């Protein structure tokens, strides 16, 4: 072995160790982060914490309303944004031919996806809350989140549809099906696993989103009753026109306005709840994705 080879080998060994060390640091950061949140947060999670309303000034408040608001806004957002993103994804993957219009659409969707969510929130404030007079409400919040969600979902839909082999389309056309029938009867079912995974993952993103909601869904929740099922009643929990503070906004507000004496405990408890829900969402997306894939493809 000559001089330069051994030197190269030495450098090689060192470099590989450095890389492994850096990977180790990243893993340690994640463990420390998750460990910190769960260890400080889990002791505060109790049935009482999950089911009692928050208190503005006193200690011992829970997160019941915030948790419900988060889920409710998430559901409404998905209901609004899924059909839109599905339609747009179908157009982009099946109908769009290379043209200035198509490239403009793609550029605009990219711009929309890179807009800071606080900018989306401010737009929502300006247009939904003030111009359309929806006030701070669940509907305003859901529309603002729709802006955050649509670019993600559209790209995901497009990818899932493009991933379906072209031979499937040709088979459909060869059978004399129209393009639309080919899409709805052959392509969409084949793309279901990808679509489901995408929708659930985007749900995880929205669930923790706060910046877009501060000025749209508001930073407070009125007194609501969970036994009032009339969505038009002011005190009903289903009323989409009431202000609704979500879990993520609650954590932010506790740590900025800090008048609640046990803000740290509530925040750590609420953070742990957020993380656990998002973990569950990730696991669910994997499970459902795999399940749909097995169902659709018939493999065991």
């Amino acid at each position, binding site marked *: 072995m000559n001089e330069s080879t051994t030197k190269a080998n030495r450098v090689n060994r060192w470099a590989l160790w450095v890389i492994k060390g850096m990977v180790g640091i990243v893993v340690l950061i994640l463990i420390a*982060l998750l460990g910190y949140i769960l260890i400080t947060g889990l002791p505060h999670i109790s049935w009482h914490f999950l089911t009692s309303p928050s208190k503005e000034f006193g200690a011992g408040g829970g997160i019941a309303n915030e948790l419900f608001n988060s889920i409710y806004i998430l559901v409404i957002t998905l209901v609004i944004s899924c059909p839109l993103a599905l339609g747009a994804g179908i157009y982009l993957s099946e109908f769009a031919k290379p043209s200035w219009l198509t490239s403009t659409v793609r550029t605009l969707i990219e711009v929309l996806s890179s807009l800071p969510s606080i900018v989306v929130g401010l737009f929502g404030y300006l247009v939904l809350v003030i111009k359309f007079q929806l006030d701070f409400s669940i509907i305003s919040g859901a529309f603002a989140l729709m802006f955050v969600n649509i670019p993600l979902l559209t790209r995901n839909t497009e990818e899932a549809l493009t991933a379906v082999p072209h031979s499937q389309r040709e088979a459909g056309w060869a059978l004399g099906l129209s393009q639309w029938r080919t899409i709805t009867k052959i392509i969409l079912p084949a793309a279901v696993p990808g679509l489901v995974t995408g929708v659930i993952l985007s749900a995880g993103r929205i669930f923790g989103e706060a910046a877009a909601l*501060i000025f749209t869904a508001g930073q407070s929740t009125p007194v609501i009753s969970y036994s009032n099922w009339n969505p038009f009643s002011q005190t009903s929990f289903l009323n989409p026109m009431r202000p609704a503070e979500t879990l993520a906004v609650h954590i*932010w507000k506790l740590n900025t306005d800090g008048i609640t004496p046990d803000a740290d405990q509530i925040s750590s408890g609420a953070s742990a709840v957020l993380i656990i829900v998002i973990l569950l*969402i990730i696991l669910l997306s994997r499970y459902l994705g795999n399940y749909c894939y097995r169902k659709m493809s018939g493999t065991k």
Partner: protein
Amino acid sequence: MNNIQKRLLKPSAATHQDRRGRLISFVCVSFIMILTVAIIGFIAIHGLATFTDNHISVWDFLTKSDWNPGQMGPNGKPEVGALAMIVASFAVTLLAALFATPFAVAVAVYMTELAPKKGARMLQPVIELLVGIPSVVYGFVGLVVIVPAIRTVFGGTGFGVLAGSIVLFVMILPTITSLTIDSLKQVPGYYRNASLALGATRWQTIYKVILRAALPGIMTAVVFGMARAFGEALAVQMVIGNAAIVPTSLTSPTSTLTSQLTSQMGDTIMGTLPNNALWSLALVLLLMSVIFNVLVKLIGRRGELK
């Protein structure tokens, strides 16, 4: 006879359905386009009001650092200088990218080159989880862990650019990592084989061949990470200190564009100068995110693997 001809020439039910479907999907796309244009238009109109209605000079806005739009300054004009916020935003973004890039590239190289199967299976969930953690949680942990830590080590309040960039470092790490992985995967296998066949070591192959071939992709990943860092609002707002002054050191409280928007927007009245000035900050944010987009396009066009 005529009847048959008419029937044959009439579009079938399937054609109608086809047209309807195409129309529906086109309407969806147009709707999204209109929404995007509306956002950009509204923010631009409101952001420009500071300069058109209140006659503040754009140059003063970008280069002066006295931020006090609610009151008159010594020269009888309101003080609308956003330099502090612009400087702080760029400072946290660049620092975070500087911290995160080496780690992201290391993780990506480890996952794709060194321990492909095992490493990927172990680290994939780590990355997904880091992406999934909401930004307020990062902010909260930063507030209760990192800020006090900086306070004990460096003195001062602990709030400032350093705390902000550490929080952002962890937040953009997974973004850069996953995009870098994509670009490393696109490097053809025969590049590796050719390099190894020439007698290069693992590291030489990685450093001189793979990373170089993937460089445009890695740069795109970094720009995406920076775009995310630049636009992140709440996590930064919780740890930056929120004082609209140009940062003199890494540990002095300051304010970014996003943090100023989040903390002040609720306190101003629509249509007044303080409010318009905030919309101008939002406009700067919007322009920056467009610039990041253009950058990504440019890098992508230059660095296509041929």
